């Protein structure tokens, strides 16, 4: 077992302890507070999904919100059908009088759960194949996925009869999971979401420590070089996009459950960028850090908006700028830096006579290439 893996497992255990035990205790098992926290946890899943493709393979997917949205709509469609006898109400408003074929299979919960994972994965996969076969990389990945997201959101809003348009899908029934009617304000629901997050993190940690993850990191650094070792780079990139999209879809399903509606704003550019920000704050190199980033930013947003009704958005903006400038690797970077500094300190104490750190350095114009 490598050191990194043991650190990750340690962090994983600590994180599990916090969300399974500490958070419920702190909130005294209060349904509302836990529901709010469940919202953060489901967003943490989409953040860790992004970290998987961005942090590991260096592919910044600005379309993450699209796959998240697909998951959330899949769930919402199922619940909407449950809630309406016959045709969902909004279809009537749009002069649709038979249930569109796209909706029919969502009567089934099993189909819905599968679709919430596989549909996003398929969409992510198609975009990925389209891009990565042509060896699109870097900023261009960000641009193409962004353009796709904008187009996709427009399409969803445009197809009102199918999607509820701007209003999204509202008036949903509670989910009936194997006979358990899910009350989103229950402690049980909180644990469901928490367990989902832990499962997603397990997948994330597994992937980043598998050979697959290693190759992804190699690709991030030098895709060209990796090809000369016989790896089909585009298939690796496509796969990580699929996994990430499936996890995002999963998060979307949970999000619909938490908020009790699905909205095209889940597919907006600003939401997508917000996910990126959470990951950046947490640290893109680690899925756990990304998840923590999402939780912290959202919780912070909740608190700030409580205290500063109008200025909170401004403060968030300032925070992001500061994070990018002073913590380019996010909280994760800060923690590893401090850990590194700690061990360096210990080391230098041990062999202090030898080290003669130069004193009084004159800072110099940053030069160079």
């Amino acid at each position, binding site marked *: 077992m490598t050191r990194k893996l043991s650190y990750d497992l340690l962090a994983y255990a600590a994180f599990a302890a916090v969300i399974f035990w500490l958070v419920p205790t702190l909130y005294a098992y209060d349904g509302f507070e836990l529901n709010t926290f469940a919202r953060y946890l489901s967003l943490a899943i989409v953040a860790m999904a992004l970290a998987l493709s961005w942090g590991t393979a260096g592919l910044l997917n600005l379309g993450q919100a699209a796959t998240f949205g697909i998951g959330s709509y899949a769930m919402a469609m199922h619940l909407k059908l449950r809630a309406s006898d016959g045709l969902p109400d909004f279809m009537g408003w749009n002069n649709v009088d038979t249930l569109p074929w796209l909706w029919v299979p969502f009567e089934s919960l099993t189909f819905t759960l599968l679709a919430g994972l596989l549909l996003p994965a398929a969409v992510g996969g198609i975009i990925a194949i389209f891009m990565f076969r042509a060896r699109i990389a870097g900023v261009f990945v960000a641009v193409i996925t962004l353009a796709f997201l904008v187009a996709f959101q427009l399409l969803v809003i445009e197809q009102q009869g199918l999607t509820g348009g701007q209003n999204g899908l509202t008036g949903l029934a509670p989910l009936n999971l194997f006979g358990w009617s899910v009350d989103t304000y229950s402690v049980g629901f909180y644990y469901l979401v928490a367990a989902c997050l832990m499962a997603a993190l397990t997948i994330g940690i597994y992937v980043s420590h598998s050979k697959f993850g290693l190759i992804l990191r190699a690709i991030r650094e030098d895709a060209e*070089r990796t*090809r000369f070792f016989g790896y089909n780079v585009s298939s690796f990139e496509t796969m990580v996009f699929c996994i990430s999209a499936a996890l995002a879809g999963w998060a979307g399903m949970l999000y619909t459950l938490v908020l009790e509606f699905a909205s095209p704003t889940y597919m907006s550019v600003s939401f997508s960028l917000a996910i990126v920000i959470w990951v950046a704050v947490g640290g893109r190199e680690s899925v756990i850090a990304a998840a923590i980033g999402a939780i912290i930013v959202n919780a912070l947003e909740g608190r700030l908006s409580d205290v500063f009704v109008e200025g909170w958005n401004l403060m968030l903006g300032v925070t992001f700028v500061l994070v990018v400038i002073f913590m380019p690797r996010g909280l994760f970077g800060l923690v590893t830096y401090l850990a590194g500094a700690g061990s360096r300190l210990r080391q230098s104490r041990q062999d202090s006579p030898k080290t003669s750190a130069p004193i009084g350095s004159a800072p110099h114009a940053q030069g160079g290439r």
Partner: protein
Amino acid sequence: MAQLQIQNLHVEFGGLRAVDNLDLTVEEGEILCLLGPNGAGKSTTLDLICGKTQPTGGSIRFQGTELSGLLEYERARCGIGRKFQVPSVYKELTVAENLSVAQSRHPGMWRALFTFGRGDTATQRRVLERVGLAEKAGVKAGNLSHGETQWLEIAMLLTQDSQLILMDEPTAGMTIQETEKTADLFRQLRGSHTLIIVEHDMSFVRRVADRIVVMNRGAKLAEGSVEEIENNAAVKTAYLGH
């Protein structure tokens, strides 16, 4: 039949013929040194073999299969490994991880997805010991010195274990002793592997080469043993000097 057969190969970059009607055969198990002045097209030739550059025309056959049309990774899977002129290792990965990546006998995606951990660490350790990097296994490759980086990339190629290894200036930045060590290492590979080495260091070339090909302006200028080449008048004017 020769292992590698290049016929009538040429490539153009916006009017400039970097490789011009090159014919080259390489026998299995030999060490071929490719010499030539700057800009003669040596690196480009290697690029053409490993698929980094697409030729304008001509054919490259490796063990009987035509390579043109194959992608880089497909060629690598055929058994062609490449070391680059500018050492390209993964600076953010540790030395051991670099070797893990290089260990690409099974380069499939699914296989990688279901392989946990770092692969065959015993082999990695052996190779590292061979090149003298065993102590640096946990060090980030970006923190290695220039010479060590060269060694790491050589180690990666050893791990990759391709039949045909293309080496672009492997000893640049090495001390004389290191250069000698490299030469010895390469000689051990002779027979089991085929090597094409691009090098400017004649003392090194003398130590390792079975055969030398000299290129000039994209075409073959001369071909032969070390003595033949060192006494070739055309090579002297174009490359070696007097």
